[in-house]
Protein backbone atom coordinates (compact mmCIF):
# COMPACT_ATOMS: atom_id res chain seq x y z
CA UNK A 1 0.00 0.00 0.00
CA UNK A 2 1.35 3.47 -0.84
CA UNK A 3 2.88 5.67 1.81
CA UNK A 4 2.09 9.36 1.99
CA UNK A 5 4.22 11.98 3.71
CA UNK A 6 2.19 14.43 5.77
CA UNK A 7 2.94 18.13 6.04
CA UNK A 8 1.03 20.45 8.33
CA UNK A 9 0.77 24.20 8.51
CA UNK A 10 0.31 25.52 12.03
CA UNK A 11 -0.60 29.14 11.19
CA UNK A 12 -2.05 30.88 8.13
CA UNK A 13 0.82 31.70 5.78
CA UNK A 14 3.33 29.71 7.86
CA UNK A 15 5.64 27.02 6.53
CA UNK A 16 4.47 23.44 6.02
CA UNK A 17 6.36 21.20 8.39
CA UNK A 18 6.83 17.48 7.92
CA UNK A 19 4.59 15.80 10.49
CA UNK A 20 5.06 12.11 9.67
CA UNK A 21 3.65 9.57 7.28
CA UNK A 22 0.57 7.42 6.79
CA UNK A 23 -0.17 4.28 4.80
CA UNK A 24 -3.32 4.57 2.67
CA UNK A 25 -4.72 3.23 -0.60
CA UNK A 26 -5.22 6.72 -2.08
CA UNK A 27 -4.83 10.44 -1.41
CA UNK A 28 -8.41 10.88 -0.15
CA UNK A 29 -7.99 8.31 2.60
CA UNK A 30 -4.44 9.49 3.25
CA UNK A 31 -5.84 12.95 4.03
CA UNK A 32 -8.46 11.47 6.34
CA UNK A 33 -5.83 9.41 8.16
CA UNK A 34 -3.45 12.37 8.29
CA UNK A 35 -6.16 14.47 9.86
CA UNK A 36 -6.62 11.81 12.51
CA UNK A 37 -3.01 11.00 13.21
CA UNK A 38 -1.47 14.45 12.96
CA UNK A 39 -4.17 16.98 13.74
CA UNK A 40 -5.92 15.35 16.65
CA UNK A 41 -5.12 18.17 18.98
CA UNK A 42 -6.76 20.53 16.51
CA UNK A 43 -3.45 22.26 15.88
CA UNK A 44 -3.22 22.17 12.09
CA UNK A 45 -4.49 24.93 9.89
CA UNK A 46 -3.87 23.05 6.64
CA UNK A 47 -2.67 19.58 5.77
CA UNK A 48 -0.84 18.27 2.73
CA UNK A 49 -0.20 14.68 1.81
CA UNK A 50 2.36 13.79 -0.85
CA UNK A 51 2.96 10.28 -2.19
CA UNK A 52 6.39 9.24 -1.00
CA UNK A 53 7.23 8.25 -4.59
CA UNK A 54 6.85 11.93 -5.58
CA UNK A 55 9.67 12.90 -3.27
CA UNK A 56 13.19 12.84 -4.69
CA UNK A 57 16.02 12.77 -2.27
CA UNK A 58 19.61 14.01 -2.21
CA UNK A 59 21.90 12.62 0.47
CA UNK A 60 25.36 13.03 -1.11
CA UNK A 61 27.35 15.13 1.36
CA UNK A 62 29.90 16.03 -1.32
CA UNK A 63 27.04 17.99 -2.87
CA UNK A 64 25.28 19.16 0.27
CA UNK A 65 28.37 20.04 2.29
CA UNK A 66 31.18 20.62 -0.26
CA UNK A 67 34.60 20.29 1.33
CA UNK A 68 36.03 23.54 -0.13
CA UNK A 69 36.16 26.88 1.65
CA UNK A 70 32.91 28.63 0.80
CA UNK A 71 32.82 31.01 3.72
CA UNK A 72 32.72 33.93 1.30
CA UNK A 73 29.16 32.89 0.43
CA UNK A 74 27.98 33.45 3.96
CA UNK A 75 26.32 36.68 5.00
CA UNK A 76 28.72 37.01 7.93
CA UNK A 77 31.71 36.91 5.61
CA UNK A 78 30.13 39.35 3.15
CA UNK A 79 29.44 41.77 5.97
CA UNK A 80 33.13 41.74 6.94
CA UNK A 81 33.93 42.60 3.32
CA UNK A 82 31.52 45.52 3.34
CA UNK A 83 33.15 46.87 6.47
CA UNK A 84 36.61 46.50 4.92
CA UNK A 85 35.53 48.37 1.76
CA UNK A 86 34.02 51.20 3.79
CA UNK A 87 37.33 51.63 5.69
CA UNK A 88 39.30 51.63 2.41
CA UNK A 89 37.03 54.23 0.83
CA UNK A 90 37.35 56.44 3.90
CA UNK A 91 41.15 56.17 3.77
CA UNK A 92 41.19 57.08 0.04
CA UNK A 93 38.92 60.08 0.69
CA UNK A 94 41.13 61.22 3.59
CA UNK A 95 44.23 60.95 1.43
CA UNK A 96 42.57 62.98 -1.37
CA UNK A 97 41.50 65.66 1.14
CA UNK A 98 45.03 65.95 2.53
CA UNK A 99 46.43 66.39 -1.02
CA UNK A 100 43.94 69.21 -1.76
CA UNK A 101 44.86 71.00 1.47
CA UNK A 102 48.53 70.90 0.61
Amino acid at each position, binding site marked *: *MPIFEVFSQQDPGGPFIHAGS*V*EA*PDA*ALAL*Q*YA*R*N*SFSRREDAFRLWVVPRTAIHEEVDLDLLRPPGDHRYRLGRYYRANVEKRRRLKARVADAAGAEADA
Partner: protein
Amino acid sequence: MTPRARAALARYLLAMADDELVIGYRDTEWTGAAPMLEEDLAFSSIGIDEIGHARLFYALLHELTGQNIDYRARRPQEFLHARLLELAAAPRYEPSGEHRPNRGWAFAIVRQYLYDRFDALRLESVASSAWQPLAEAVDKVQREEKYHLLHTSTWIARLAERAATRGRLSAALAECCTGVAGLFEPVVGEALLVAEGLLGASGETLRSRWSDQVGAELARHGIAVPADGLAPLARSALGGRRGEHGPEWLQQWDDMTSVYRLDPAATW
Protein backbone atom coordinates in the same frame (compact mmCIF):
# COMPACT_ATOMS: atom_id res chain seq x y z
CA MET B 1 -43.37 23.23 27.81
CA THR B 2 -46.05 20.90 29.20
CA PRO B 3 -44.93 18.11 31.56
CA ARG B 4 -45.95 15.53 28.93
CA ALA B 5 -43.88 17.20 26.23
CA ARG B 6 -40.94 17.53 28.61
CA ALA B 7 -41.10 13.83 29.46
CA ALA B 8 -41.25 12.93 25.75
CA LEU B 9 -38.31 15.20 24.89
CA ALA B 10 -36.33 13.69 27.77
CA ARG B 11 -36.97 10.22 26.33
CA TYR B 12 -35.97 11.36 22.86
CA LEU B 13 -32.72 12.85 24.20
CA LEU B 14 -32.03 9.67 26.13
CA ALA B 15 -32.54 7.51 23.03
CA MET B 16 -30.27 9.81 21.01
CA ALA B 17 -27.56 9.78 23.69
CA ASP B 18 -27.80 6.00 24.14
CA ASP B 19 -27.48 5.46 20.37
CA GLU B 20 -24.28 7.49 20.36
CA LEU B 21 -22.86 5.81 23.46
CA VAL B 22 -23.59 2.28 22.30
CA ILE B 23 -22.28 2.59 18.73
CA GLY B 24 -19.36 4.70 19.96
CA TYR B 25 -18.37 1.97 22.40
CA ARG B 26 -18.67 -0.69 19.68
CA ASP B 27 -16.46 1.40 17.37
CA THR B 28 -13.72 1.73 19.95
CA GLU B 29 -13.55 -2.07 20.13
CA TRP B 30 -11.71 -1.86 16.79
CA THR B 31 -8.63 -0.35 18.41
CA GLY B 32 -5.91 -2.77 17.40
CA ALA B 33 -8.23 -4.89 15.23
CA ALA B 34 -9.09 -2.71 12.19
CA PRO B 35 -7.53 -3.60 8.80
CA MET B 36 -4.59 -1.25 9.35
CA LEU B 37 -3.07 0.93 12.03
CA GLU B 38 -4.33 4.16 10.45
CA GLU B 39 -7.88 2.78 10.42
CA ASP B 40 -7.57 1.72 14.08
CA LEU B 41 -7.05 5.36 14.89
CA ALA B 42 -9.65 6.71 12.49
CA PHE B 43 -12.43 4.36 13.53
CA SER B 44 -11.88 4.42 17.27
CA SER B 45 -11.59 8.19 17.09
CA ILE B 46 -15.03 8.27 15.43
CA GLY B 47 -16.19 6.13 18.36
CA ILE B 48 -14.78 8.60 20.86
CA ASP B 49 -16.54 11.46 19.03
CA GLU B 50 -19.85 9.59 19.33
CA ILE B 51 -19.30 9.03 23.05
CA GLY B 52 -18.59 12.77 23.36
CA HIS B 53 -21.92 13.48 21.69
CA ALA B 54 -23.64 11.10 24.12
CA ARG B 55 -22.16 13.08 27.02
CA LEU B 56 -23.45 16.29 25.49
CA PHE B 57 -26.98 14.89 25.14
CA TYR B 58 -26.93 13.50 28.71
CA ALA B 59 -25.95 16.99 29.88
CA LEU B 60 -28.85 18.51 27.93
CA LEU B 61 -31.17 15.97 29.50
CA HIS B 62 -29.95 17.15 32.88
CA GLU B 63 -30.62 20.74 31.88
CA LEU B 64 -34.14 19.79 30.79
CA THR B 65 -35.19 17.64 33.74
CA GLY B 66 -32.59 18.06 36.50
CA GLN B 67 -32.00 14.32 36.23
CA ASN B 68 -28.37 13.10 36.39
CA ILE B 69 -27.55 10.34 33.94
CA ASP B 70 -24.63 8.12 34.88
CA TYR B 71 -24.65 5.40 32.25
CA ARG B 72 -22.62 3.08 34.45
CA ALA B 73 -25.32 3.04 37.12
CA ARG B 74 -28.24 2.24 34.80
CA ARG B 75 -29.84 -1.16 34.36
CA PRO B 76 -29.56 -2.71 30.89
CA GLN B 77 -33.30 -2.35 30.22
CA GLU B 78 -33.14 1.40 30.90
CA PHE B 79 -31.17 2.02 27.70
CA LEU B 80 -33.20 3.17 24.69
CA HIS B 81 -30.72 2.70 21.83
CA ALA B 82 -31.64 0.95 18.58
CA ARG B 83 -30.81 -2.74 18.69
CA LEU B 84 -28.74 -2.61 15.49
CA LEU B 85 -26.12 -0.59 17.37
CA GLU B 86 -25.49 -3.16 20.09
CA LEU B 87 -24.51 -5.97 17.70
CA ALA B 88 -20.90 -7.07 18.12
CA ALA B 89 -18.73 -6.47 15.05
CA ALA B 90 -15.12 -6.44 16.28
CA PRO B 91 -13.40 -9.74 17.06
CA ARG B 92 -13.39 -10.61 20.72
CA TYR B 93 -10.46 -12.18 22.50
CA GLU B 94 -11.31 -13.67 25.90
CA PRO B 95 -8.55 -13.87 28.54
CA SER B 96 -9.12 -17.66 28.43
CA GLY B 97 -7.80 -17.67 24.86
CA GLU B 98 -11.20 -18.15 23.28
CA HIS B 99 -11.66 -16.09 20.12
CA ARG B 100 -14.92 -14.98 18.51
CA PRO B 101 -14.59 -13.33 15.09
CA ASN B 102 -18.05 -11.69 15.29
CA ARG B 103 -19.54 -9.89 12.27
CA GLY B 104 -16.37 -8.30 11.03
CA TRP B 105 -15.10 -5.11 9.52
CA ALA B 106 -17.49 -4.78 6.55
CA PHE B 107 -20.44 -4.96 8.94
CA ALA B 108 -18.89 -2.33 11.22
CA ILE B 109 -18.14 0.17 8.46
CA VAL B 110 -21.50 -0.34 6.71
CA ARG B 111 -23.40 0.02 9.99
CA GLN B 112 -21.49 3.19 10.83
CA TYR B 113 -22.24 4.57 7.37
CA LEU B 114 -25.98 3.77 7.59
CA TYR B 115 -26.05 5.20 11.11
CA ASP B 116 -24.21 8.39 10.07
CA ARG B 117 -26.74 8.99 7.29
CA PHE B 118 -29.54 8.52 9.83
CA ASP B 119 -27.84 10.64 12.46
CA ALA B 120 -27.31 13.53 10.02
CA LEU B 121 -31.06 13.60 9.29
CA ARG B 122 -31.95 13.34 12.97
CA LEU B 123 -29.59 16.21 13.83
CA GLU B 124 -31.18 18.29 11.08
CA SER B 125 -34.54 17.55 12.66
CA VAL B 126 -33.49 18.54 16.20
CA ALA B 127 -31.65 21.63 14.90
CA SER B 128 -35.08 23.20 14.35
CA SER B 129 -36.32 22.29 17.84
CA ALA B 130 -38.29 24.94 19.69
CA TRP B 131 -36.23 24.01 22.76
CA GLN B 132 -33.36 26.42 22.22
CA PRO B 133 -30.57 24.66 24.19
CA LEU B 134 -30.96 21.59 21.97
CA ALA B 135 -31.07 23.53 18.70
CA GLU B 136 -27.90 25.41 19.74
CA ALA B 137 -25.94 22.35 20.83
CA VAL B 138 -26.43 20.60 17.52
CA ASP B 139 -24.20 22.81 15.39
CA LYS B 140 -20.94 21.51 16.89
CA VAL B 141 -22.11 17.92 16.68
CA GLN B 142 -22.99 18.37 13.00
CA ARG B 143 -19.52 19.69 12.23
CA GLU B 144 -17.92 16.63 13.81
CA GLU B 145 -20.31 14.31 12.02
CA LYS B 146 -19.04 15.70 8.73
CA TYR B 147 -15.81 13.74 9.14
CA HIS B 148 -17.67 10.54 10.02
CA LEU B 149 -19.75 10.65 6.84
CA LEU B 150 -16.76 11.61 4.71
CA HIS B 151 -14.85 8.65 6.08
CA THR B 152 -17.60 6.03 5.91
CA SER B 153 -18.74 7.19 2.43
CA THR B 154 -15.15 6.85 1.22
CA TRP B 155 -15.09 3.29 2.50
CA ILE B 156 -18.42 2.45 0.83
CA ALA B 157 -17.10 3.82 -2.47
CA ARG B 158 -13.89 1.80 -2.16
CA LEU B 159 -15.63 -1.43 -1.19
CA ALA B 160 -17.94 -0.98 -4.18
CA GLU B 161 -15.03 -0.57 -6.61
CA ARG B 162 -13.78 -4.12 -6.86
CA ALA B 163 -15.56 -7.42 -7.41
CA ALA B 164 -13.69 -9.00 -4.50
CA THR B 165 -15.08 -6.52 -1.97
CA ARG B 166 -18.46 -5.80 -3.57
CA GLY B 167 -19.78 -9.14 -2.37
CA ARG B 168 -18.72 -8.39 1.18
CA LEU B 169 -20.28 -4.95 0.98
CA SER B 170 -23.60 -6.38 -0.26
CA ALA B 171 -23.61 -9.10 2.40
CA ALA B 172 -22.90 -6.61 5.17
CA LEU B 173 -25.55 -4.28 3.77
CA ALA B 174 -28.17 -7.04 3.78
CA GLU B 175 -27.27 -7.94 7.35
CA CYS B 176 -27.33 -4.33 8.60
CA CYS B 177 -30.55 -3.44 6.83
CA THR B 178 -32.53 -6.02 8.80
CA GLY B 179 -31.84 -3.86 11.86
CA VAL B 180 -32.19 -0.39 10.39
CA ALA B 181 -35.90 0.01 11.18
CA GLY B 182 -34.96 0.17 14.86
CA LEU B 183 -33.20 3.50 14.30
CA PHE B 184 -36.48 5.08 13.21
CA GLU B 185 -38.64 3.41 15.85
CA PRO B 186 -40.40 6.22 17.72
CA VAL B 187 -39.97 6.81 21.45
CA VAL B 188 -43.22 7.18 23.43
CA GLY B 189 -44.58 10.68 22.80
CA GLU B 190 -42.73 11.35 19.53
CA ALA B 191 -45.90 12.55 17.77
CA LEU B 192 -46.41 15.14 20.51
CA LEU B 193 -42.85 16.43 20.05
CA VAL B 194 -43.43 16.95 16.33
CA ALA B 195 -46.81 18.59 16.96
CA GLU B 196 -45.29 21.05 19.47
CA GLY B 197 -42.29 21.90 17.26
CA LEU B 198 -39.82 20.36 19.69
CA LEU B 199 -38.75 18.03 16.91
CA GLY B 200 -38.57 18.84 13.20
CA ALA B 201 -39.66 15.49 11.81
CA SER B 202 -41.02 12.11 12.88
CA GLY B 203 -39.03 8.89 12.62
CA GLU B 204 -41.26 7.82 9.75
CA THR B 205 -40.40 10.99 7.77
CA LEU B 206 -36.71 10.44 8.49
CA ARG B 207 -37.00 6.82 7.34
CA SER B 208 -38.30 7.86 3.94
CA ARG B 209 -35.66 10.61 3.50
CA TRP B 210 -32.96 8.19 4.63
CA SER B 211 -34.08 5.52 2.18
CA ASP B 212 -33.97 8.03 -0.69
CA GLN B 213 -30.47 9.25 0.22
CA VAL B 214 -28.92 5.87 0.87
CA GLY B 215 -30.68 4.33 -2.14
CA ALA B 216 -29.31 7.07 -4.41
CA GLU B 217 -25.77 6.73 -3.06
CA LEU B 218 -25.78 2.95 -3.45
CA ALA B 219 -27.16 3.30 -6.99
CA ARG B 220 -24.26 5.64 -7.86
CA HIS B 221 -21.89 2.85 -6.86
CA GLY B 222 -23.94 0.23 -8.69
CA ILE B 223 -24.85 -1.60 -5.48
CA ALA B 224 -28.28 -3.25 -5.39
CA VAL B 225 -30.67 -2.60 -2.53
CA PRO B 226 -31.28 -5.80 -0.48
CA ALA B 227 -34.31 -7.85 -1.59
CA ASP B 228 -36.42 -6.81 1.44
CA GLY B 229 -35.59 -3.13 1.01
CA LEU B 230 -33.27 -0.81 2.94
CA ALA B 231 -35.27 -0.57 6.16
CA PRO B 232 -37.73 -3.46 6.36
CA LEU B 233 -39.95 -3.47 9.44
CA ALA B 234 -38.42 -6.60 10.95
CA ARG B 235 -39.63 -7.51 14.44
CA SER B 236 -36.11 -8.31 15.57
CA ALA B 237 -35.05 -4.74 14.75
CA LEU B 238 -37.58 -3.13 17.08
CA GLY B 239 -38.02 -2.75 20.81
CA GLY B 240 -34.83 -0.81 21.55
CA ARG B 241 -36.68 2.47 22.13
CA ARG B 242 -38.70 0.67 24.84
CA GLY B 243 -35.61 -0.81 26.50
CA GLU B 244 -35.86 -4.26 24.89
CA HIS B 245 -32.51 -5.59 23.77
CA GLY B 246 -30.73 -8.77 22.77
CA PRO B 247 -28.11 -10.98 24.43
CA GLU B 248 -25.21 -9.08 22.85
CA TRP B 249 -26.35 -5.96 24.66
CA LEU B 250 -26.09 -7.72 28.02
CA GLN B 251 -22.51 -8.59 27.16
CA GLN B 252 -21.72 -5.01 26.13
CA TRP B 253 -23.47 -3.60 29.21
CA ASP B 254 -21.46 -5.99 31.35
CA ASP B 255 -18.21 -4.83 29.70
CA MET B 256 -19.11 -1.16 29.96
CA THR B 257 -20.11 -1.23 33.62
CA SER B 258 -17.95 -4.01 35.11
CA VAL B 259 -15.36 -1.71 36.65
CA TYR B 260 -18.00 0.61 38.07
CA ARG B 261 -19.93 -2.26 39.60
CA LEU B 262 -16.84 -3.50 41.50
CA ASP B 263 -17.38 -0.57 43.85
CA PRO B 264 -20.29 1.73 42.98
CA ALA B 265 -19.44 4.05 45.86
CA ALA B 266 -15.89 4.76 44.62
CA THR B 267 -14.99 8.22 43.40
CA TRP B 268 -13.27 8.26 40.00
